[in-house]
Structure formats: C-alpha cells, structure tokens
C-alpha cells in the first residue's frame, strides 16, 4: 500500500521536474484520499487529521526546528495566517523533529499560531516518505475541495494563490 503511494509521489516529483515553469499541471492528488490519512499527534498530546480542514484552503507545511530556512519561513506563514485564516485559510504544520522538546520550543519561540503535528522520525518518518519530502521546508497547497493545487510556493506567489483559492467557491 505504501509502495504504491510512494510511487505516486515519485511520479509527482518527476512531473514537476519535467513540467514547464509557467504552467504546472499537477497530478491528481486529493488529501481526502484514504491512502493519505495524515493523522498525527499535536503538542497537547491529542491528534488531528488533515481531513479535518475540508472546505478550507490548506497549506500542508513540512518543517523542523533545526531547519533554519523553515524558521525564517515561519515568519511569513505567521503573517499569512493572521491575514487570511478568518477567510478560510488554514496551515497544517508537520514537523519532522526527532526531539519533541525541540519542536515545542520552536513553536513557542516562533509564536506559531496554526495547527501543529509531529512525525518524529526525521527523513525516515512515514509521513515524510509518503509525501516524498526530500528537503525542508516543503509545502503543498490544497484548494477547498482538497485537491493539490501547488507546491513550494513562497511569499508573494503563495499569497497570490491563497487569495485566488479563497475567492473560489
């Protein structure tokens, strides 16, 4: 089951490598797909699933406390969250930290306000493997229907896309 999933994402990676920059025709990935459960523990110790955000524009954001570029990106994400969360934008942060205390400390330090979960096995974490995360940060942007719309957008491009998706039904 997992091998099929991994192949799906390897296909995605190949697709991105080959696709023209201007038009990114994405493969058909929907986070409502039962093969992508993504239910993980929160800092409080309970768990949430990505599918809980159905109907919202969701940014699935893979990061880790030791990833400096990720910590910088958190500043931008904070601004986006503050600006668009009320309009239906959600960020689902998945950390690959192996030390849970490092993760919790980073959440506090960066004053992260959006939902956070952890799969604390670094690059070998099942989630990282399933979603073919080969570098950090890696992010996937989903529309309100749960379909994958874009990957690894940053700053203005990301904001533009979020606004665009929020405006659609």
């Amino acid at each position, binding site marked *: 089951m997992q091998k099929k999933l991994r192949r799906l994402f390897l296909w995605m990676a190949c697709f991105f490598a080959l696709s023209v920059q201007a038009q990114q025709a994405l493969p058909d990935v929907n986070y409502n797909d039962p093969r992508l459960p993504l239910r993980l523990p929160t800092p409080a110790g309970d768990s949430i699933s990505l599918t809980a955000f159905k109907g919202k524009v969701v940014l699935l954001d893979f990061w*880790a406390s*030791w*990833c*400096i*570029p*990720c910590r910088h990106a958190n500043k931008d994400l904070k601004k986006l969250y503050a600006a668009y969360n009320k309009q239906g934008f959600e960020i689902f942060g998945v950390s690959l930290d*192996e030390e849970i205390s490092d993760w919790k400390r980073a959440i506090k330090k960066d004053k992260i306000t959006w939902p956070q979960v952890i799969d604390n096995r*670094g*690059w070998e974490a099942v989630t990282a493997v399933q979603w073919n*995360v*080969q*570098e*950090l*940060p890696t992010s996937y942007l989903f529309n309100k229907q749960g379909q994958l719309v874009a990957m690894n957008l940053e700053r203005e491009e990301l904001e533009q896309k979020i606004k665009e998706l929020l405006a659609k039904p």
Partner: protein
Amino acid sequence: MKKLILIACSFLFVLATQAQIKKAELTATGLTCAMCSNAINVALKDLSYVDKVVVDIKKSEYRITFKEGADVSIDGLKNAVEDAGFSVGKLNITASFDNVAVSNDAHISYKGNTLHFLEIKNQTLNGEKSFTVVDKGFLTDKQFKKYAAATKMSCVQTGKAAGCCVNDNVKEGSRIYHVTI
C-alpha cells in the same frame, strides 16, 4: 639533485598494514542549508560500502558505519556529497590499526591506498583510531592551506604520488590521502 631526493625520500617509509575502516563522521557545507536536504543522506546510503547513516542534527554531521570488510572509498564519500550539490566541510575516519608506527610528513600504505600524515606527533597507532582527511575538497580552503604548508612534497596539492614519493612501493600517480590525527 638525486642525492637530495634520496635523502628526502629516506624519511619516508611505508608499512603494509591491514587498517580496517570502520566508521566516519562527515560534515557537509554548501550555499544552502546542507542538513535541510535529504540528498546527502540518500547519496551516502546509496554507496555500496555504507552500512548505516545516522543524521546528527545537533552536531550537523552524518555518522556513517561501513560494511564489515568492504572496500571503503574515501573519495567516494566526497563524490557522493558533491553529487548531492554540497561539499565536505570535515571528514573524520575511524579505522583499526595493528601497531603501526607513523611519523610526521610520512606515508603509510593501507588497502591499496597511501596515507600521508601531516602535523602529527610521531606515534604508534594501535586499535581504533580516528584521523581527519585534510586533502583539498575535504575541508575549507583556509584550513587546507595550513596543511599544505606542513610539507614540501607536491603530493599534498594533487592528492597523488609524485616523483619524490615514488619509493617504498608508492606508485607514481597513485592516490595519497593526506590526513592528520
């Protein structure tokens, strides 16, 4: 001239030794955050002589364990890191030695390669010992210059045996790893 070369080379001595390379700690550098990419991890794991790689985030290093009895290529480790788009910042190799006497600015041979020790005190290596590779491309340019100045032999610049090293079974053109303890 020949006499001078002979005198210089007489300070070199090569001892055949079965040094088994057991593990290594590698730090990578690059223009972007090296540890933020899984590429180095994957590239090292892909090497046929690598048994296990553990990523140590706190020390920013890859702890590599080699397969028992495998032919470990030190250059292979560097190439893997470079193919992944990064460079080696530091490489420590742990190998087992069997009472090997090493002198400063001198060569010993192991497993078909040659080690040229620099900036060391004369000593006998016994059991598991770690040495740092100081060849070009295995540390910063600044650090390399320091080790390059520690010898007059040209092999330190090229990583290969030159005229003066061709003695005691060190073939001209063969790979010499410059190392320190």
